[in-house]
């Protein structure tokens, strides 16, 4: 009897003590049991959180004048947010690993640095190499690693970057500083505003990050870490045989007059005029809020992401993407360039038009990834409206009439100072060549640019520019190809010199040039096949007019 009594008396007490013990363990700084199926220790080792954690509060931001400037919505429509969903990137990486199978692990690791930075740094903190295709397709992301990967260049990527190596070559190619030691719960997240201690608990409790003020995230050097990309040219056995400045807009900016005027952020993250909270949860007004729209120029990829949203796992709503596309095109058409006729006259049987093209951007136009091109569509019509001359007409498949490179992969249009026939097209572009001087679109095959006549930013001195940003080809010797602009002289024979002629000039931009897309068609892989199919289905809208001018010459 007594034994039973002891048992039945002690048992409830044991339950009581167990309950107390569990309750007393509430001092845990990160009071969660699991995060996406990971246990607490794994969660503490997380370096990042996906953007959803931030969007809950940094959304629904509407200016007093009614403009929605929500960080979450702006960001998720950007190329930054969709860097891992970009089907062109998928195809390009697949092409490279197909061309260089022995280097697949290295290629995936390097490409993931800036397209899947959170996943990359998470695994590299354990000494492992990051993968690309293991995290795809984006619409089937399951694991925490998958979700970090497809979240692209996310909030906790940029806002955790430390500034100690800013501007140094060591910081380029995605080698930004990230604290890999501090556990989640104590990790710092940087922002430009003073930390409001009273409110800091709100963010820390839900995200695990502690706010810290630092202006370094407003420096161009932050963007430079990824947007200064050198690739290693690989030989037949995977050996490194050269280095290519694949995209260096930061260095272009450094060599322009914009270096003292505007940062990358000041243009690509436009400032909101009104003071307003940056959080919808008990936020306080902040001056000079920077929009997180990351407006750039790739309207075409945004359109592709929107059209094939289900396959690509796009989170932004269709109307949000439409707004972003319109915003991008508007940005291109108002901030990138100007075209005007400097001189137009008819001498005897020749129409002479000096057309000036001005670059308003703080880097080359176009810049960054070498698939981008800008060209002049120049047309002359007689008094009856008949076209008597046309150079640079765009076709529905995305190719340019008269462009040798679109007709034949190993050819290309040189830079022109004068254009005298319709087969000549002024295309501002970077043409890549391999070690045998064959034209290529393979990033790890290309070893140098044999043509780079992208329009220089204001203040850029081509004579003193470093080799990595140098003008290549005949543009170097073109005397009116100078910082900020280029002038092309069109000399067109006319049959009726005494009648009026109407000159129309358009500057057209195409983010993914025909050749760069079609070269992928020679590969038979799921990624290249999908992309080429996407491209072909949308090629008639692959370009946009940046600027235009018309003049009637009597």
């Amino acid at each position, binding site marked *: *009897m007594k034994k*039973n*009594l002891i048992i*039945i*008396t002690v048992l*409830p*007490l044991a*339950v*009581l003590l*167990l*309950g*107390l013990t*569990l*309750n007393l363990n*509430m001092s845990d700084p990160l*009071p*969660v049991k699991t995060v996406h199926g990971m246990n607490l220790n794994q969660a503490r080792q997380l370096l990042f959180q996906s*953007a*959803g*954690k931030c*969007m*809950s*509060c940094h*959304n*629904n931001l509407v200016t*007093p*004048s009614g403009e929605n400037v929500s960080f*979450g919505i702006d960001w998720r429509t950007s190329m930054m947010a969709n860097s891992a969903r970009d089907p062109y990137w998928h195809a390009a990486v697949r092409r490279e690993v197909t061309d260089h199978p022995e280097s697949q692990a290295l290629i995936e690791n390097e490409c993931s640095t800036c397209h899947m930075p959170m996943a990359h740094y998470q695994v590299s903190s354990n000494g492992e190499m990051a993968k690309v295709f293991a995290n795809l397709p984006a619409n089937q992301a399951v694991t925490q690693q998958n979700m970090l990967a497809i979240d692209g260049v996310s909030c906790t990527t940029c806002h955790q970057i430390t500034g100690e190596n800013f501007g140094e070559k060591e910081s380029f190619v995605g080698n930004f500083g990230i604290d890999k030691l501090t556990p989640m719960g104590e990790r710092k997240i940087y922002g430009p505003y003073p930390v*409001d201690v*009273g*409110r800091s*608990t*709100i*963010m820390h*409790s*839900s995200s695990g990050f502690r706010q810290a003020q630092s202006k370094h995230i407003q420096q161009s050097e932050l963007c430079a870490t990824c947007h200064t990309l050198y690739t290693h040219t690989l030989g037949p056995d995977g050996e490194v045989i050269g280095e290519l400045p694949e995209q260096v807009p930061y260095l272009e900016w450094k060599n322009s007059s914009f270096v003292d005027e505007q940062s990358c952020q000041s243009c690509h993250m436009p400032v909101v*005029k*009104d*003071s*307003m*909270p940056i959080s*919808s*949860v*008990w936020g*306080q*007004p902040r001056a000079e809020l920077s929009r997180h729209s990351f407006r750039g120029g790739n309207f075409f990829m945004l359109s592709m992401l929107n059209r094939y949203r289900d396959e690509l796992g796009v989170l932004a709503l269709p109307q949000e993407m439409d707004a972003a596309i319109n915003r991008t095109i508007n940005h291109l058409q108002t901030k990138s360039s100007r075209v005007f006729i400097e001189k137009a006259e008819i001498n005897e049987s020749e129409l002479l038009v000096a057309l000036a093209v001005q670059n308003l951007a703080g880097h080359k136009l176009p810049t960054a990834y070498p698939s981008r091109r800008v060209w002049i569509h120049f047309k002359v019509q007689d008094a009856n409206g008949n076209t008597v001359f046309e150079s640079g007409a765009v076709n529905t498949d995305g190719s340019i009439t008269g462009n040798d490179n679109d007709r034949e992969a190993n050819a290309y249009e040189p830079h022109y100072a004068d254009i005298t026939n319709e087969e000549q097209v002024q295309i501002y572009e970077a043409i890549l060549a391999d070690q045998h001087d064959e034209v290529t679109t393979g990033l790890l095959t290309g070893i140098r640019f044999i043509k780079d006549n992208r329009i220089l930013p204001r203040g850029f001195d081509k004579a003193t520019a470093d080799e990595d940003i140098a003008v290549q080809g005949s543009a170097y010797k073109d005397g009116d190809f100078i910082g900020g602009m280029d002038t092309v002289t069109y000399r067109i024979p006319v049959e009726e010199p005494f009648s009026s002629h109407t000159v129309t000039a358009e500057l057209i931009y195409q983010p993914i040039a025909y050749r760069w897309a079609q070269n992928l068609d020679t590969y038979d892989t799921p990624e290249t096949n999908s992309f080429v199919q996407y491209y072909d289905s949308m090629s008639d809208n692959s370009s946009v007019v940046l600027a235009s001018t018309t003049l009637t010459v009597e």
Partner: protein
Amino acid sequence: MKNEHYAYRGLFSIAVLLTLFAVTAANKSLNVVTESKYGSAVYVSEKGFQYLIPPVTGKELYMQACANCHGADGKGASVNQLSLQTAPPDFTDCSFATREPDGDWISIAHQGGPTRGFSREMPAFGDALSREDLQKIMNHIRTFCTDKDWPRGELNLPRPLVTEKAYPEDEAVLTSIFDVENEGAVTNEIVYERRFGARNQIEIVFPFGYSEQQNGNWTGGHLGDMAIGVKRTLYHNINSGSIFSITGEVILPTGDESIGFGSGTTILEPFASFGQILPMGGFLHVQTGIEYPLLRDKAGDEAFWRAALGKRINPNPWGTTWSPMIEFLGSRELESGAVNHWDIAPQMQVTLNRRQNIMLNFGVRIPADDPSRDTRLMVYLLWDWFDGGLLEGW
């Protein structure tokens, strides 16, 4: 016999002391949150002119601090829009919004969701909002449920071991009663209570027990007399802190009378329950009713009256809640010459998990008038299943 008498006096004294402690112990939770330094916001006009508008009302505070996720209308914002993994609750749903006291909601707003075992997506406002601010917000949130028929969660007072509370609940309770004197016996009952509508509750009692035989062996698993009852709240008033309910219960003769686990007759048991919030975290339960057996040869009519006095204590204002209570239990057979029986039952209820929907109560029921009756240890484990599963919220 004299020694036993002293023992009962001692136990009675301890019970009284516990009661005094319960009523007088300080409740630290009232003084923890400091005043907000950030209780005002800047309003920006269309012309860009900025001026301070202190968010004075609960609605203004709610709109600035809560509406982003919980919606201006209290129905909760879109999960997809906010990238939330957990949908915000619907404050207009009275069945959800009335059940918990303000204090629980304020704890979560101050400490964040995990303090009650909920999602981390519910942030902790910490010192950004004062207790007064949070209370104003709570008052506004309470306006989302427009049906005042639902009793407020504050009236859901801690459950005593014996006295039935007036608040209609969704809970399951496993109670064990150990006879610590003479021959051993353990009586258990599982009580399942389910609320329906704003004021009603159905309950089913499933008793079973174990007893020690003359030879010292135990026999067990005996079903006792099951009961089924319906409760209805007739009156509740959050301002006065009062709630009053009546219950009709039928006890069925499902137990084995021969081994002491049944009465052998159906018994009707109507009773009334009253709950009252007292100052400084105190509370009072009163229950009274009669037992009316259908077969008079099996049992006699009996009246009972019960009261429980207690107090909630939170040594850690956002953590475990301790509720010391003392019950006074009286009964009398309704026949001439019958005597009143009095028991006292000092006890302590404690919440076991963060969610505070799993509780344990441990006490002793002591006969106060007749030392020959047995003292019994009592313990229950309570699961408020509406608030979450058994394994949730730890």
